[in-house]
């Protein structure tokens, strides 16, 4: 079973559109992270959210941590082709020390 469920799995949009990606779990995490990965490379950390209800902005990206610290969302405004990639969420602080739990990812393609 997957501890973190991401949706949608695939997203294909035109440049300039807005989108939201979701990361949901029935478990509580001490922190949740979002990564972006390009083909043939390792994931790169975008943001870490720690406090329930926290909202962080990174240019056109807005990240939100649910009040109960079980879910998160990533909203991209006016998407650009450079936003194309695999977006992964990961939860930390489960029952196993040092363990990160990754979702399956959302593959985003932004067409010019």
């Amino acid at each position, binding site marked *: 079973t997957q501890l973190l469920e991401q949706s949608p799995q695939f997203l294909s949009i035109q440049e300039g559109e807005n989108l939201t990606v979701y990361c949901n779990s029935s478990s509580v995490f001490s*922190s949740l992270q979002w990564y972006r990965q390009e083909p043939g*490379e*390792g994931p790169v950390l975008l943001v870490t959210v720690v406090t329930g209800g926290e909202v962080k902005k990174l240019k056109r990206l807005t990240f939100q941590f649910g009040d109960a610290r079980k879910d998160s969302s990533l909203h991209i405004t006016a998407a650009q082709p450079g936003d194309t990639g695999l977006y992964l969420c990961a939860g*930390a*602080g489960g029952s196993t020390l*040092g*363990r990160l739990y*990754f979702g399956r*990812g959302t593959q985003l393609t932004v067409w010019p």
Partner: protein
Amino acid sequence: SQTIHQWPATLVQPVGSPLSLECTVEGTSNPNLYWYRQAAGRGLQLLFYSIGIDQISSEVPQNLSASRPQDRQFILSSKKLLLSDSGFYLCAWSVGISEAFFGQGTRLTVV
């Protein structure tokens, strides 16, 4: 600053041959170390993680093993590769339960 080195970047190995992938971290002490495998365009499957030397946990029964001969060195091995071992392997490190930092990955093709 901290850096992570993973090699080789690509590898083509015949079925039944041994495997050794190496990962080293610089600029930090006593990191948590991870080996992940990733199917094409999909999420990460945790294979092994280590919170210290001689402290390695295996997540999935498989044809692979891991060792941590030094604090900042993590090695993924196999005695005999299977076709199903093909994939993209990623090494990562973290401190405590904070975010993970990944290497560039190794594309393994077993033929």
